[in-house]
């Protein structure tokens, strides 16, 4: 991947000399590949658990397999499955293999989530990993946390959950939009843009990012000259694209999920240079099959978390060979691993007891990077600090991660995002 990163760097610098003044000049790519956060433990060398449990730890998932976010489901589910595999290979939690039950979250139009939650709760799960969409999470958070079960989202980024009245049972591995938005906005300005246009998905995710990008653009002295919203379920974006292009901004941020696949061709057809385009985690994905080669070359995007390592990708493919995307796979993996560790630390599979341990297994203590490694330390009486695929993960009392890396990616000539640089931030 380093090889293609190189060519894109050349391209952009070449264009800086020749192309029109509006073309941006971003800080040099630092390249980089995803690295495992640290050495994995040896599952064979894990000592036996000191605690026991009557019922094995049972975790439910509430991830989208239908509805408009259906494409986000597979990597997330694979992430959780991979974690479960690894945990059980290391002997499970409290002496028993853990169980995982998958249910569909649908999207907010189908209201399938409530039903799935009822089903999961009736099966006695201790924690539910999900939902992906902040909107869905809001409709079920009362139900889940009201039943004394942990809700652990790998992908909710809405700031609202920070202050939600959740009995301390809502947690998430995805950083709130605050950080990604700030870093992206600032990064765009550091590329020399003065005016920014945005095409934004009108939902918790989109508007959260949008307002943070806007704040940082404005505080850097730039101006957001066009903001066009579209709704989930909208499917043609010509008016949004046209009016953003009409404002002739130096940079255009596309805050969307899959809709980017329809938005980008409209933008580039209108003569927008790829290097003016910026994406976010919802849409910084591989477009090699969707767009003509070179279309996105030089465009950039941010994804929270460190770059997905080759190792991790391979392991995920082992779980689900059909995977194409990696979005939130790390966050999902980390969610399950953290739950298992906290359960082990609590010596219990009760939701509230697990929740009480989440903060401590994520921060302050001896670094460890997977279940086998961490649980070895834990059973040896040590204090652990789990760092996962999604970042260093240290929870605050609200259940939010307090620090995170935001990876910046740059598209190569094949329309594949390549790691460009990484910025750390605290919340």
């Amino acid at each position, binding site marked *: 991947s*380093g090889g293609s990163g190189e060519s894109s760097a050349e391209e952009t610098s070449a264009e800086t000399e020749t192309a029109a003044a509006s073309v941006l000049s971003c800080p040099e790519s630092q390249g980089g590949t995803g690295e495992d956060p640290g050495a994995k433990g040896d599952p064979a060398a894990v000592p036996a658990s000191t605690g026991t449990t009557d019922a094995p730890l049972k975790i439910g998932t509430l991830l989208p397999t239908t509805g408009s976010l259906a494409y986000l489901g597979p990597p997330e589910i694979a992430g959780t499955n991979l974690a479960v595999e690894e945990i059980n290979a290391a002997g499970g939690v409290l002496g028993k293999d853990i169980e995982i039950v998958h249910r569909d979250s649908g999207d907010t139009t189908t209201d399938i989530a409530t039903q799935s939650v009822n089903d999961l709760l009736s099966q006695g799960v201790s924690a539910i990993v999900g939902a992906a969409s902040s909107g869905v999470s809001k409709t079920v958070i009362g139900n889940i946390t009201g039943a004394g079960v942990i809700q652990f989202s790998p992908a909710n980024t809405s700031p609202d959950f920070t202050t939600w009245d959740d009995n301390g049972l809502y947690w998430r591995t995805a950083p709130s939009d605050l950080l990604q938005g700030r870093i992206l906005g600032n990064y765009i300005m550091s590329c020399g843009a003065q005016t920014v246009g945005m095409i934004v998905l009108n939902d918790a995710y989109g508007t959260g990012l949008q307002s943070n990008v806007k704040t940082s653009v404005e505080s850097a002295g730039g101006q957001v000259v066009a903001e066009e919203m579209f709704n989930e*379920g909208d499917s043609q974006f010509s*008016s949004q694209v046209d009016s953003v292009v009409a404002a002739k901004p130096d940079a255009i941020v596309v805050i969307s999920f899959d809709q980017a696949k329809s938005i980008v061709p409209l933008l580039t057809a209108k003569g927008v240079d790829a290097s003016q385009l910026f994406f976010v985690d919802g849409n910084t994905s591989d477009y090699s099959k969707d767009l003509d080669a070179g279309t996105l070359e030089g465009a950039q995007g941010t994804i929270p978390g460190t770059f997905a390592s080759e190792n991790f990708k391979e392991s995920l493919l082992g779980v689900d060979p059909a995977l194409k995307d990696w979005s939130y796979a790390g966050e999902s993996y980390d969610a399950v691993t953290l739950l298992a560790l906290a359960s082990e630390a609590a010596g219990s599979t009760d939701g509230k007891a697990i929740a009480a341990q989440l903060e401590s297994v994520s921060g302050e203590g001896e670094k460890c990077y997977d279940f086998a490694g961490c649980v070895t330390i834990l059973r040896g009486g040590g204090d652990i600090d789990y*760092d996962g695929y999604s970042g260093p993960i240290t929870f605050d009392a609200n259940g939010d991660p307090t620090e995170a890396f935001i990876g910046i990616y740059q598209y190569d000539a094949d329309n594949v995002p390549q790691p460009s640089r990484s910025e750390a931030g605290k919340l």
Partner: protein
Amino acid sequence: MLAAVAAMFAALLLSAPAASATTATPDASPSATSPDSGADYPDRISGVIKNEGTPLEGVKITANGNGYEGEAVTGANGSWSIGVPQQGAYEVELDESTLPEGVALAEGQQNPRTVTFANTTNITTLFLLGEGIVLQEESFGSLLLERAVAGLSFGLLLALSAVGLSLIFGTTGLTNFAHGEMVTLGAILAFAFASLGMPLWVALPLAVLGGAAFGYVQDAGIWKPLRRRGTGLVPMMIVSIGLAVAVRYTVLFFFGGGTQQLPGSQSPILELGPVSIPRNTLVSLIVSLAVILVVALLLLRTRIGKATRAVADNPALAAASGIDVDRVIRLVWVIGGALAAMGGILWAYYRPGVSFNMGQQILLLIFAGVTLGGLGTVFGALVGSVLVGLFVEISTLWLEADLKYVGALVIMILVLLVRPQGLLGRRERIG
């Protein structure tokens, strides 16, 4: 904890040279952009100095705070960057004497200014020169023209699907909520055939044929048996909802939830006088119009066309006139399926993109078009859909973009207030 972050970051940086060993401009030298101080510090204050879009080289910036002073001079691309030892508040100043002749800071730009940073490793501040940020405005006329063209294309595309819907409604009385899925299927089939390696000129007609076949199978498998049993229109409508759900999720099952592109989905923009229009859109505009006119003429002029209207009016009497009602309805489903599939393909090029719910997403607009024009009339479907398309696009001149369908829907309601039978529909005689 902080140390841990730093360590992580260091690890990343360390891995970087390995990856970029062959890079022409080694990233270890930020001096490629500008020579500055504090290159080793991870926390940086930076910016780009441009005058009317041209980067300025050699402008000097200083940062002062927390007992540290750093300075930088802009590079060839106008960018500057000062590393600082820790986050916090710094006073940043642009040395105006280093600006070229005749260039000054824009009005209202503070200099020096206080830049505060917390929690992120980089902070940017811009010094705007000259007139600062100038907002770009297009004239209302050209905006209107642009939206009208977009609306016309969108409307014609809706019309193609709407004609199929209207035909089926007109002949069988069925409000077919599965029509969206028939639209989707056209695009999905086109995608499937194309990804089997067929050239487009084979894949697209095959997809239309597939749509026709779907219409045929639907009628043979569901609607005809239901008619036989004398099932009422409302239960049939619910059946169509069930069918829509089943088909939609079957497509999801095989196709997945993501968006895919058909070959040739990115098309250049053609400039025709004052109008600029993507090539694909222009082609689809012409195809829609031609197909609709042909269908309309067939219905008005041919025997079988008249038979469809006769069946619509009174199936029993149609049978008593020697019309094979089932055959006529079958034909209508086949044509409706083909038109929907064609609409789906054009829709996939217009958006652009193929997804499992693409038809469902425009179903309401299709219905609105059909209704506005007058249910069951082909020209009504055409006129109504074009109006819906135009209103969707033109209303964005005043409405927020996320309300763009509202404009069209309100107009439809208002028109029906004046003409309850739709624009081209006919009022029934009482008594």
